[in-house]
C-alpha cells in the first residue's frame, strides 16, 4: 500500500531539474554567444522541464523550498519560460526577449513598421533588399526590435526570412 502511495506521489510531481553550475555555464555560454547575455546578467534559479525548456525563478526561491512544495503540492507551473535548447542554438522565449532587453547586445533585428505588424500577427518576416545585404551570410536566432525600441519577440533567420515564434494567444488580430 505504501509503495503504491509513494508511486502515485511521484507520478503527480512536476517533472523538472534544477540546473547545476556546469549546466548553467553551458547555457550561458550559448546565450552569450548568440545574444550577449552573461550569467552575471541573470540572477535566480534555473530549472529544466519537458521539451528542454528552461525556466527562471526569483533568486529568493531556494531549491529546498521548491522541492518541499513539489513534494507536498500538485505544482503546475514554475517561474518564467525563458529559453529552449535546440539543435542549432538557444531559442529565447517571447517574454524572455523582453525581460532581458537591456542586456541583449547581439543578434538584434530591426524590423520596420510593416514587418513589426506582420510579425505580431504571427507571420514570418521577409527581409527587404537592404536588410538582405546587411544580414548577408547570417542565420540563426534573432531578437526583433521595432522602431519604437520595443522588443517584439525572437525568431529564426534563414533564407532571407525570419520564422515567427509568437505564441498564438499573443498575436495581434486584424
Amino acid at each position, binding site marked *: 500500500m505504501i509503495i503504491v502511495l509513494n508511486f502515485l506521489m511521484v507520478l503527480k510531481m512536476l517533472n523538472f531539474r534544477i540546473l547545476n553550475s556546469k549546466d548553467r555555464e553551458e547555457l550561458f555560454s550559448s546565450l552569450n554567444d548568440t545574444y550577449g547575455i552573461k550569467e552575471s546578467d541573470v540572477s535566480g534559479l534555473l530549472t529544466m522541464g519537458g521539451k528542454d525548456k528552461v525556466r527562471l525563478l*526569483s533568486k*529568493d526561491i531556494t531549491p529546498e523550498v521548491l522541492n*518541499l512544495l513539489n513534494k507536498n*503540492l*500538485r505544482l503546475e507551473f*514554475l517561474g*518564467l519560460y525563458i529559453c529552449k535548447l535546440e539543435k542549432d542554438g538557444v531559442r529565447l*522565449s517571447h517574454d524572455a526577449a523582453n525581460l532581458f532587453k537591456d542586456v541583449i547586445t547581439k543578434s538584434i533585428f530591426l524590423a520596420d513598421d510593416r514587418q513589426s505588424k506582420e510579425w*505580431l500577427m504571427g507571420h514570418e518576416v521577409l527581409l527587404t533588399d537592404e536588410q538582405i545585404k546587411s544580414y548577408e551570410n547570417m542565420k540563426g536566432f534573432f531578437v526583433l526590435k521595432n522602431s519604437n525600441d520595443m522588443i517584439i519577440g525572437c525568431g529564426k533567420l534563414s533564407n532571407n526570412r525570419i520564422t515567427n515564434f509568437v505564441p498564438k494567444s499573443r498575436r495581434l488580430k486584424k
Partner: protein
Amino acid sequence: MTFDDRVANDIKPEFEERMLKLLNGDKDDYQKFRLCISTHPLNSIRCNTLKITPDALKKKLESKGWKIHQYSPDNPEIMIILNDLQPGEIGRAEEHLLGYYYVQEISSMLPLLALKPQPGEKFFDCCAAPGSKTTQAAALMDNSGMILANDNSLGRIKVLASNLERCGVVNTIVSREDGLMLGNKLANRSDLRFDKVLADVPCTGEGTLRSSPSSAGSWSLKAIESFSKRQMMIAESALRLLKVGGLMVYSTCTHGPEENEVVVNYLLNNFDVELVPFNLPLKTRPGITEWGGVEFHPSLKYCARVYPHDNNTEGFFVSLIKKNSDNKNVGWKK
C-alpha cells in the same frame, strides 16, 4: 453613459431589500446604486511596472489616440481609458499583448493596495486565477521574493499561467489544490509560512453586476449561504499558512454580509487575529457590525465596503487581518 437593461430586469426583490438595508434604508442612496449597476463599468487598466513605467505607457497609449486618466498620484499605475473603444480593443492592443498592462477593474486592485506585499517577502494567493492580483503582487514585489499562487481548476490555471508569462513574472510557483485543503495540508507537513496571504475567495459576485449582468438572474440566498460556509473554510485554511505577525487580506467582490463580515467575524471568534485599519485611494464605507439580529465584533468597522455608485467602480469588500499567534479560540464571542 450606456445603460444595460439586463440588470434592471433580473434583479430580485430580496436582493433589493437586502441592499437597501445595507445602505441603511436610504432610498436615494439605493436609487444611485441601482442606476450605477445598470451602466457599463469604466475601462480601467493597471500598468505592469515589471515591463514599463506608468509615464512611458501613458505616452505610448496617448500616441494611439487614447485619453488616459491616472487614478491617483500615489498609484500612477492605475489608469482609466476615457475614450469609447470598440469591444475587445483594450485586450487586442499591441501594448496589452506585450504585457505592458493588465485589464483590471479598479475595485479588484484594492486588496493588494491594502496588503502591500514587499520585495523579498513570501506571499500566498490561495485562489489566484485568472491572475490579476497575482501579477499585481509580483509587480509590487518587483519580481523578487516568492509567490505561491493556487487555484483548483486546470482550465483557470492555464489562463493564470498565460497571464504570468505575458507579464514577465519570475517569482511565482503555481499549484493546483483545493483552497479548502491546501493550507492545512502544507501547514501540517512543513514549517513554511508566508509574510502575506491573500484570500480573495470565490463568491456570488453581487459587486460585479456591471460587467456580468447575467449574475443578477442567478442570485439566490441559498447560493450565498453555500458560498459563506466554503469561504470560512478557505479563509481558515489560508490563515494557517500566515506567519505570526503576518497580514492576510480576506476579500470578495460581493456585498452580502454572510460572505464578508460573517466570515471575518468567524476568524476573530476562533483564532488569535485582529483587524487592522487601512486606507484606500477611493471612497469606502465601514464594515457592518450587525446583521440579521447578530452582533459582530466591533472592530469589523475597520473592513472596507466599496459600493459601485460611490466611485463609479464595481463593488468589493476588503478586510486586513493580522495574526497574533497560532493559538485557537481566544477571540471575541457574542
